Each structure stands twice: as structure tokens, then as C-alpha cells.
């Protein structure tokens, strides 16, 4: 577990659990990759005001405990399918605030994962400063 300056330890742990559900490849990152991902998210959150960080922390706490009502377990103790179901409820559910909160959280995961420089090669995105030679590549 890499420490985050922007979130308390418990919130950071939920964030990583959410990240592995949103982008399953997060679970396969090595220590360096995970550290880079967390570093990107952490830096972005540190640029936000403390109120916003607090809201994110509260939302992560909500994700952690919401499944207790349905499954009798916290998010971190659920299997992959139930984790997906919980996050789908946040994404598609009737509460606008939850939908928007989840959208923001998801965006942070994507920023951390796809913002890593090596993610470009992993998805096959390979722009070049001089791309003229590659125009007829495919």
C-alpha cells in the first residue's frame, strides 16, 4: 500500500479497491507502476482545496460501508462481482449526487492509470512528435 498525502490511510485503501474494480489491470501493476499511479492521483488531489479532498474521503467511506446494508460486508471484503454490482449502483442509481461522485472517482482512477507514461504503450497509443512517417502505417 502506497501512502497518499491527500487522503487518510483508510480512504486511500478504499480508493485502491475501487481502482481495481474500475480498471482491473490496476491489480496487475508492479510496485513501481502502482506507485506512479498513486502519485498522479495524489498530486491532482493535492492541487484541490481541502474541502474537495474531504468530500472525496467521505464518498470513499460511503462506498466502503454502503454494501453492509445489502451484503452484510464492507466493500473491501466483497468478491469482484459484488464490487462491480455496488459500483454500478453508484453509477446508475437514482441519487444524482452519488452518480456524480462516482463519475469523479472513476475519472481519478483513469487519470492515475492511463496517465502513467507507460500506459500509452500498453494500450497501443504511440504518437510521435514527427508523425509524418506514421501516417500510412496501418
Amino acid at each position: 500500500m502506497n501512502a497518499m498525502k491527500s487522503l487518510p490511510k483508510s480512504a486511500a485503501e478504499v480508493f485502491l479497491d475501487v481502482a481495481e474494480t474500475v480498471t482491473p489491470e490496476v491489480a496487475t501493476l508492479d510496485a513501481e507502476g502502482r506507485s506512479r499511479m498513486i502519485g498522479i492521483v495524489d498530486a491532482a488531489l493535492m492541487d484541490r482545496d481541502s474541502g474537495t479532498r474531504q468530500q472525496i474521503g467521505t464518498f470513499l467511506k460511503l462506498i466502503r460501508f454502503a454494501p453492509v446494508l445489502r451484503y452484510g460486508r464492507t466493500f473491501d471484503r466483497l468478491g469482484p462481482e459484488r464490487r462491480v454490482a455496488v459500483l454500478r449502483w453508484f453509477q446508475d442509481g437514482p441519487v444524482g449526487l452519488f452518480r456524480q461522485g462516482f463519475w469523479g472517482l472513476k475519472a481519478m482512477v483513469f487519470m492515475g492509470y492511463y496517465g502513467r507514461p507507460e500506459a500509452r504503450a500498453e494500450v497501443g497509443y504511440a504518437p510521435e512528435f514527427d508523425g509524418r512517417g506514421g501516417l500510412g502505417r496501418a
Partner: protein
Amino acid sequence: MRERDFDVVIVGSGAAGGTLAKELAPLVEAGKRIAVLEWGPRLADDAYTGHEVEMAKQLYFDSGGVLTRDRTMTLAYGRAYGGSTVVYTGTSLVMPREVVERWDVPGIVHDDLQRRSAKVLEENNVHLLDESKINENNLLFRAGCTKLGYRCRQFPINVKGCRASSLCNLGCPNGAKQGTHKVQLPVAEAAGVEVVTNCRVTRVDEEGCDAVVADPGFGLPSAWEPGTYRVTARVVVVAGGAVNSTALLLRSGFGDHLPVLGRYLTLHPALILVGEHPREITNDHGHPKSFYCDDFVESERFLLETCMYFPFTTAKNLIGFGAEHSELMRAFPRLQMILVLAIDPALSSNRIELNGDGEPVVDYTMTPAVLDSLHRSMVESSRIFFAAGARRVHAPAGSSFFINAEDAHRVDEMIPRANVVPGRMSVTSAHLMGGCRMGRGAGDSVTDGWGRVHGTTRLFVGDSSLFPQCSEVNPYVTVMALADRTAEFIRDNAGELLTS
């Protein structure tokens, strides 16, 4: 607080600020002092790395993710020496006559805007890219449109020596895009206009403005030491973009006698659609935006454009998460993208306000008609993808994550209107217009047709916040044409305006 004195202060250095700086620069020879105060940094040529997160942080407000009040849209606008012209794709369209007529602003006529726009196009080296330099992501859009009988036009773009990096929206790493940071500002500086970066203007009045210079931790140092400044001036032109110009005037108390200030904001709400082809296509080399389809502007109020975004931006704009999302992301070399833009009405209720800290908050609600437009645009874009040979399509309001080619004949039912709900789709805007609209008087607008704020003699607005309604095309050429007009007024009346 340190003090500075100028004859003209221009707040912002983007399409409007850069144009004003260049067009007013001849006054320097007559002994006048002109400053451009830009909130963002000036980056060295080798600082354009093409890395998405890094460049977004350095060149956009909130990394391009400013949220509206209800968090259903994100807004992307630039903050740099050159403003948003550093990060646009350089597509250069002249506003149609019928839109100018709809604006109905005294003094603003199509022939005059057309003449000024032509000057902008020439100055910025606007031309059609040679066919050999257009990539498959774009050519497939044209092929799809052609097959369906839709009108497809090529975007004129403002590049010089384009090397096909495809990284326009992260700032061209080759300096090819002819934004104000490459064309107008260097001319102005050579003539003696002072450009001060990392300088945020906090309040404005008819005698000048208050500003704060702070080091953001990247970019070249500002010409002024960090600190607070009182800058006096005979003429002030606010050109910080729709959100920040409006917020500046609100913060400075102009809302007290201008009830329209902040209102009638339009955004061209936009969505990204993705089509996956059975083979790899060229999409990450070449200019990202070569064609558009305006066949549906009058009938359904939307515009379709080619586009190509970077991994994080793409991931963020897809709906859903998990295995399917990852699968689509890993198909990146096979992806074709279309950007749809809704032509939104100017409503008094869509507005920019200030929060308790004096920071801008954008309060914008998509009307049912706009949601209808976005819905129809997704259906038509899906048809274009399939007509171009895509094996499946991801539409933000699709009833399933993928719509497969065998279902192409029923895209209407696969993209139900009921799914087009704010907050469920990633809706963005990079065309922010209105807030300081031009018009007849303080009852219906903020400025007159020259951009002069009602009730003042020496305070002007010079950017897209002036638009009384949306431009229905990419707005930067119109912004420059209007700024050219305002500069002409100031030059012609310099004797009166620039006298203490």
C-alpha cells in the same frame, strides 16, 4: 502593493487578448504603454512534452476538468501565454451570415465580420491540409458520411510546418499551430507591448486593475516579481475568456447595475463517440480534426466533428468501467472517434456566478431540446461509424456498452432517448460563450457592439463572453474578428480614450 502604470491594459492573451495586443501595438510607437496580463505561464519550446496529465495541468484551468455546479459537465479552457489558442486544434471557421443575423447586435454585420475574419485567416496561415496528410481516423469519417449522403466538409486549419504529431490539444510540440503565442503576441512584444505571465487580475475598474503575480512552479519566470500590484491604465480590455472575464466583472461589482452580467452562457455541449474497426487504423499520427458534418445544424441542432483524444481523456469519456471498458481501451489502435456538439440556446438561467470565495461557478442546465440533439447526434454518429466499416460502436447513451455491426440497422432503439440523462454521460465543453453579451443597453446586455461595458467609457470586454448566442461553429475566428473591431475603435478614439 507595487504600482505600475500603462495606457492600455489587456487582461488575457488568448484569441482576443493576443489580437488586441497586436492591433493596438502601433500605439506604442506613438508613446503609449501597453501591457497584457496573463494568468497562465509561458512555456519554453521544449516544455511541450505531449504527456497528457502534465500538459493538462500546465495549460488548462483545473487540468481541463472544471465542473459545472451540478457536476454534469466538465469545461476545458486554457491558461497560458496564448490562452486557449495554445490548446485548440486550430480549426478555423467563419461564422455564418444567418448566425450573425440571429445575434442582432447593433453595429455587428456579417460583411464586416467576414472582412475581419478573412484578415485573421490570412494572418494565421489558415488552409486546407493536403489529402496526403490526413489520417484514417478522419478519412473514415468522410467515407461514412459520403456513403450515407451526409454533407462532409474539410476544416481549414491554422498550422505552419505541421509534423502530424496529433498532440494539438496538449500544445503543439513542434510549434506548428498558429495560435496567438506564435503569431500575434510575438509581433506585439517586438513592437514594445509588455506581456506579463503568471499574473492573475483580481479586480478591475475604469482606472485599472489589481493583480497578483505568483510562481506556479512550472514555465518561464514572469516579467514581474511575485507579489500584489495596482496597475493603473486609461483603457482596460478584459479578455480572459467567458468564465474568467465574467467572474472578474462580477467580482468588481459590475453586476450591481448590469443585471444580465453572467447570464446567457452557451457551451456547445459535447460528447465523444468511439467506433472500433476490425483492423488498425492511423489515428495517433496526423492532425486530429480534418472534417465536420453540418448537415444537421438547422434540422436537429448538432454538429459532428472528427476528433482523437489521449488515453486518459478517452477513458474518462467512455461510459462504464471494468472489463468492457478495459477491452475498448486496449483496442486503441483500432479506434475511430467523433465529437458531437449540440447547438444550445442562450438562456438567462444558464449563468456564471461567484461562490463565497469570489470564484466562478458555472450554473448550466441542458434543456430537453439539447438532450434531444445529443441523442440524435449519437444515433447519426453510430450510423457513420458503421457505414465506415466499424465492427462495433460505443455510444454514451447506448443500452449496452457495445453496439455490434449486426445491430447497425437498429441503432435508434439501441440508443434510447431515455438514456440521455445529465450526469450519466461525460458531457464536456471547450466552446464557452456568453456572460458579458453584447446588445443594446444595460437592460438586455453587458456591452455595446464595440465591447464597451455599458455605463463606462474606458472599460471593454473582448472575448467569447461577448457572444449574445452561441456561434454554431468553432468560435475562435469570430473572437479574433470582434477583438480586431474593438482594437480599431480604441485606436480611432485614442485621443479621447487615452488621455488622463
